[in-house]
């Protein structure tokens, strides 16, 4: 498979890797036309844009330029062979990313030296483009090299470690988003924890309800239609509407039943949020559990029964191990989805990282919005990656 790709690439002429070339061109156009950073006199007014070349020091954009030339050569069929080109991308792209991050941080420090303490440095559109393109280049190179998961994980850990080290070395301290963080340090930790708690309190019950329902859908074909009909219906309700819809009945319940009130059940806050998150999580969990069990070959089950395994033994030793990768793929979908949806839960007073986003939107303070959005995205990416590893591990050795 690999070799056909190689020969196809070469027969097409000069360009061997269109994806890489496209990403590179996008990054260069973005860097040339869009603002890299903005400086504002205070938090609430919009700032003055700065381009990449004027924001960065000469050695910084010069090196970025050289890396761009190298990446450009990697996209061509000459001078590098394809595998060599992919490996070079895996070296050049992260250097590019780290340099962009460092460049932004150092620009902020320099710009703030002779500005008032209220002045703000924010990242601009070009920054996001120039930072995301190398990440996509890395993902693309790994896919083409068919690298195994262990190596990918090690690489991702190294890259994440380097970025974390830059945070630890206060490289980004001049940036507005970190100023917002510094102002809200304790609140941030609390909201971050609330966010995780909301996600976990939704996923636990969702699994506890969804796994048996998935098994039921597999065992009873009659239950399948109505069950999936209902779960699909939940999925079609817009999240804000669902959160809002739950407020009134829960408030009434809490009013009518004092013991619920004693448990902390209220019309607003965590309860409706968790219920809504569970409702959204059920469909992927039930669907994947059902698909996982349905995927176990009938002849495997017949052999298991014919050898004298009890139904319980067949469930635990044969069906669950064989269905597990598919079930965990469902959990992966649901976890990423719940991390994102929990943002909306802030609207009904459940807290979480969403509260920064809505607060920031209300105050037109984009950096506060980002303080909520960037960690949410990072959380989703990390959760996705970890669950991907879990899925790979759960695949039976015979089927890996």
């Amino acid at each position, binding site marked *: 498979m690999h070799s056909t790709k190689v020969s196809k690439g070469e027969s097409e002429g000069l360009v061997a890797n269109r994806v890489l070339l496209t990403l590179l061109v996008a990054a260069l156009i973005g860097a040339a036309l869009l603002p890299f950073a903005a400086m504002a006199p205070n938090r609430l007014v919009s700032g003055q844009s700065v381009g990449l070349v004027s924001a960065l020091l000469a050695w910084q954009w010069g090196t970025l330029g050289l890396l761009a030339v190298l990446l450009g050569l990697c996209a061509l069929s000459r001078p590098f062979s394809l595998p060599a080109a992919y490996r070079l991308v895996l070296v050049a792209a992260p250097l590019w990313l780290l340099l962009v991050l460092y460049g932004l941080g150092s620009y902020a420090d320099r710009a703030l030296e002779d500005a008032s303490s209220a002045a703000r440095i924010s990242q601009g559109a070009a920054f996001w483009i120039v930072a995301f393109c190398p990440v996509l280049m890395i993902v693309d190179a790994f896919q083409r090299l068919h690298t195994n998961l262990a190596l990918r994980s090690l690489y991702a850990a190294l890259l994440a470690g380097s970025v974390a080290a830059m945070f630890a070395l206060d490289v980004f301290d001049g940036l507005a988003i970190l100023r917002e963080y510094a102002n809200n340090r304790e609140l941030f930790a609390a909201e971050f924890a609330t966010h995780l708690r909301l996600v976990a309190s939704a996923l636990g019950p969702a699994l506890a309800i969804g796994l048996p329902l998935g098994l039921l859908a597999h065992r009873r074909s009659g239950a399948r239609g109505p069950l999936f009909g209902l779960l699909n219906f939940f999925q079609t309700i817009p999240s804000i509407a669902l959160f809002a819809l739950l407020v009134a009945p829960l408030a009434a319940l809490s009013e009518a039943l004092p013991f619920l009130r004693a448990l902390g059940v209220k019309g607003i806050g965590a309860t409706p949020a968790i219920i809504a998150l569970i409702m959204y999580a059920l469909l992927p969990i039930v669907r994947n559990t059902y698909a996982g069990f349905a995927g176990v070959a009938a002849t495997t089950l017949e*052999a298991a*029964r014919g050898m004298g395994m009890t139904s319980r033994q067949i469930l635990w030793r044969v069906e669950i191990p064989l269905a597990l990768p598919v079930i965990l793929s469902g959990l992966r979908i649901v976890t990423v989805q719940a991390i994102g949806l929990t943002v909306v839960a802030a609207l009904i007073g459940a807290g979480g990282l969403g509260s920064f986003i809505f607060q920031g939107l209300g105050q037109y303070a984009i950096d506060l919005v980002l303080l909520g959005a960037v960690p949410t995205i990072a959380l989703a990416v990390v959760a996705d990656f970890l669950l991907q590893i879990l899925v790979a591990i759960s695949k039976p050795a015979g089927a890996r």
Partner: protein
Amino acid sequence: MIELQGLTKTYAGKDVVEEVSLRVESGEFGVLIGPSGCGKSTTLRMINRLIPITRGRILLGDEDVTELPPEQLRRRIGYAIQSTGLFPHWTVAENIAVVPGLLKWPKQRIDARIDELLNLFHLDAGEFRHKYPHQLSGGQAQRVGVARALAADPEALLMDEPFGAVDPLTRDVLQNEMLRVHRQTGKTIVFVTHDMDEALKLASRIAILNAGRLVQYDRPIELLTQPADEFVRNFIGKADLGLKLLSRRWVYQYQQSAEILEQPSSFHHDRSSVTHGWEIDDQGRPLCLHGGRLYAEESEQRTRVTHEWSATPDMTMKEALSRMVWFRVMVLPVLDEQERLIGEVAMQGVMGREP
């Protein structure tokens, strides 16, 4: 011993197995055969109670199978199916260990048993123990499937078209192995197939089913020579009837003594009353055949003995005849395991004698 007494299975008011009574004695190789949908699998699966019995009785030894808990019954009866049903997430060793594990054998005994069974099927234990089913060829997977069915030394073995999905060459090899394993273990076997050649080759008794009813239950030779009715006659097939008979006869039944030539160079057809003779080496292995050709003008010739052009006592006469035709000779040397000449089998013998 497995005995079916008036066994009946009804689905939605229709009898798919109807009043079947037959007895497979201990150590016998019983084959159920019949057209597709005639109820073979249903009958087989009632024996280990994968399907509940509507009416009638099944005895395993002197026990009624319905009086045992189904799981315990199944652990005492091996079960092998066409698609092998090997567990894809377990190694060959783990697959074979299933029933011994359910019966709580000690680990050492299970390990020894796995090696023993892999050896029985000529699979190298060191190599195959740790393989996963998807790493096996069709024939190897089927061997492991049968080994797994035999793992806990069951009282009987049920097999549902186990060789139906492998290529003809592999099927032939697996059938020979099955015969050998049956000889070595002496298991009572109930084997389902729709292939008459397979049934004739393997069975000590054949039960022919048609639309859920037992039409004839007999030894293969009797089935061929005395078919009960037109259905059986048609099912056996009118073509190749003679060859089918020969496939149930063995070289040792037709073996004659062979003429050894002391001075091979002196052999001449016209000076001797003997039409052919064998030249052997000092170990008693045949080197070549003098004479023994169909046409007189060829009979001066010598024919070198090769491995392909020879017979063993346990070869079917069908195979021996096929070799005679292919190599254009009237006789084949019969060799023992050391490849020594122990007799010959001749074209005239095939036609002449009834063993």
